[in-house]
């Protein structure tokens, strides 16, 4: 299973964090720090894998964003690269030519898409269309401002 998924910029700013194991805030901060440092320090033309503690770390850079995933021993690293790519494709389809700004300003949507793609550290849906379809359909359930005001909360 995937233990965590992080997105950060080339300056090390965090854009998304998804944790599939319970960690304290301090531990999370440490992981983020270690990941950004290790990944950003990698020289060019090296593999996309590194070993960190007992996890395999798979990372890939897309434009100005680094996607970084922590895997367990039994997981397939090459497939993780495909998984990262699929997530980027899903974001791209939803936002239309996605760029870092989209993810900054619409981070909650990035999470919604992620939550339709992965769950509990495993891939939930392998169809390219189903994920985007579900998110868009759920979007329609979001109330407009009027509906929101008129509906009782509880």
């Amino acid at each position: 299973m995937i233990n965590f998924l992080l997105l950060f910029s080339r300056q090390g700013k965090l854009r998304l964090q998804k944790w599939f194991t319970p960690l304290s805030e301090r531990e999370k901060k440490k992981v983020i720090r270690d990941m950004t440092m290790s990944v950003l320090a990698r020289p060019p033309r090296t593999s996309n894998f590194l070993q960190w503690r007992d996890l395999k770390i798979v990372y890939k850079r897309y434009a100005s964003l680094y996607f970084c995933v922590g895997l367990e021993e039994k997981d397939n690293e090459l497939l993780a690269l495909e998984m990262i790519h699929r997530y980027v494709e899903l974001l791209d389809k939803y936002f239309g030519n996605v760029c870092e700004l989209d993810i900054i300003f619409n981070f909650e949507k990035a999470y919604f898409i992620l939550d339709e793609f992965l769950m509990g550290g495993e891939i939930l849906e392998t169809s390219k269309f189903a994920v985007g379809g579900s998110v868009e359909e759920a979007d329609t359930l979001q109330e407009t401002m009027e509906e929101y005001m008129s509906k009782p909360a509880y």
Partner: protein
Amino acid sequence: MPAPIRLRELIRTIRTARTQAEEREMIQKECAAIRSSFREEDNTYRCRNVAKLLYMHMLGYPAHFGQLECLKLIASQKFTDKRIGYLGAMLLLDERQDVHLLMTNCIKNDLNHSTQYVQGLALCTLGCMGSSEMCRDLAGEVEKLLKTSNSYLRKKAALCAVHVIRKVPELMEMFLPATKNLLSEKNHGVLHTSVVLLTEMCERSPDMLAHFRKLVPQLVRILKNLIMSGYSPEHDVSGISDPFLQVRILRLLRILGKGDDDSSEAMNDILAQVATNTETSKNVGNAILYETVLTIMDIKSESGLRVLAINILGRFLLNNDKNIRYVALTSLLKTVQTDHNAVQRHRSTIVDCLKDLDVSIKRLRAMELSFALVNGNNIRGMMKELLYFLDSCDPEFKADCASGVFLAAEKYAPSKRWHIDTIMRVLTTAGSYVRDDSVPNLIQLITNSVEMHAYTVQRLYKALLDDISQQPLVQVASWCIGEYGDLLLSGQCEEEEPIQVTEDEVLDVLEGLLVSNLSTPVTRGYSLTAIMKLSTRFSSVNRIKKVVSIYGSSIDVELQQRAVEYNALFKKYDHMRPALLERMPIMEKTASNGPTEIVQTNGETEPSVVEPKHPPPVNQPASQGNDLLDLLGGNDVPVIQTTMPTKPASAGGELLDLLGDLSLGGPAPAPAPPAPASQPPFLLDGLSSQPLFNDIAAAGEAAYNKNGLKIDFTFERANPNPNVAVITIHASNSTEADMTDFVFQAAVPKTFQLQLLSPSSNVVPALNQGTVTQVIRVLNQQKQQLRMRIKLTYTHKGSAVQDLAEVNNFPPQSWQ
């Protein structure tokens, strides 16, 4: 109060901050506004405020005051609220938080909601971070949803079940019925998550594994359909249909086929098909091939298939893509034990990877793999490559590489000369990275290569002239020079041009080590001892005496003590000096000797243990002649009697007598329990020169009773270690005069280890007015019958008394 600013507005504002301080200020302001809004229990803007809080949380600011608000959002009827509420819960409310459990009821309700997306939110949250209690409470709901026909919910329920099982493995059973027809689904999402669920169950329970083996044909069929099926736009990745599902099926097949002939056979064809037909031009194809190879290697596949798998890995090694090369090396490392010959065929490619630029991972893996492939046939070639690698690799690998080289050289060295040369090469190129324990190992190796002594010492001497910064090299070199300095002088080397060197030059070098800032205290110790040893091999004794006496006032306590004792050796015991400093005998390795283990020392780092002739300096009060030869040392120092490598029977019988009455003249160093070559069970058996051998088999526990001195033994078992027997001796004196200077010593057979702690006193008062007690700890790992030889010395009525006795009627409880 004006409406709180929108989320995007806030993000935009914060991004305009030019400094960290400015950003902090903005955030604090907004947080204050949000907090007051929360306090007002504002339902309308709660969602917006929590969203903003989540953004600020991502920037690294605390957001714990929003936890309860998330709960309120989850409980809300509005979908917008729930969406943000659940997101907030997943980010802020993990199981370590107190309020985590409060979610349970909301989730339960939402799991039964009429809208599938709400149900989906609840399943997602539960399945990502539900605690064990929550999982226990809600497992039933999840199980219900696992049986629904709604594939959107079913796939989520499946992964939620996986999480539940991970948190509460006992609940696995309850999901079993629902798995019945999971694999007959057409929906890929459900199929994928079902395979994950089945995998999790099979990994955790052998019963489940056996139960699910019957699914192998079905899995094979699904995999086959995926491969053979035409283009499916929604699942296609570079021409391959749903690689994620394919890989998961392969992984499940691996688990099901492992150790089972029938299952392995049933999947044989499909594995061969995947292995041969998968497109390798893109990463996705290689991902599938990788998984296939792992599966083939783990199950009981036929040999043709295994060879195919290894060849795929071999091809991976030649691939331009670094990721694939890395993955290949990792897999080859796993298989090298079982399929050694097949991997050997790719040895040259693997060795080339040592030169790969991807420093961290690949070179390390290639190095490990290379070491695994070294054998008697390829040792010369491989070692060349590995030594070259050692020269150029990162410091973080040097220690491991050096150790690996030593190990390999030890196992497969084609000749002693080659072995020594290799060691020299490592010491000179990576000398400071070599592990500390390799120094004693190397010294032992050198000692045992008798014919190479001259060559070795010469090379080491020359290396010292070049560079004295690498401590392990310096230590080994000084030890050798100390031992074989005479060979250095005499120019006896056959292997290469003998070096011309004078005594003074050699002593210059050694003294140079003593004063150099580069030398550690340990190295200085070695060097001083080496200089001392040369006093019997060189003629410049006066110079050596001077050096030794200078260090008698050294600040370094270790050095000072040595110097003082060596001084004493010059002054009072000069007649013993030649004997003590004689050439070391060949040390045989004990069976358990590995590179990391050389016998325990008395806390000394210098190989005083490796030098059995030198009683560890700490224990050398040199007060009585006998004691010098007696490794049990003085009264006040706890002594660990070590299992020494055995000594060949080159010395006569008397030499091996630990406690016997020895004549002090001739060369009679007595290492701790040496044994004559025939290795009798007890140390001193078979030796005739045993005067004063007191063969008292004491009844009960009174071990010794003679001349008014009575010694009783009491036993107990040491608590952490049942193999250690703790024996306390009680010495009492029934005569009318005190026994002073009382010393109790003991020796045990080789298979035991003995530790003698300090006695309570060394005066045994007269007329049984008190007892002297002393604790002996005996390690009896082989559970043999304990036997002990004891030696007692004391002064009684002005005259010295000495006695030997054997105690061998220890009660069985003491050693069983």
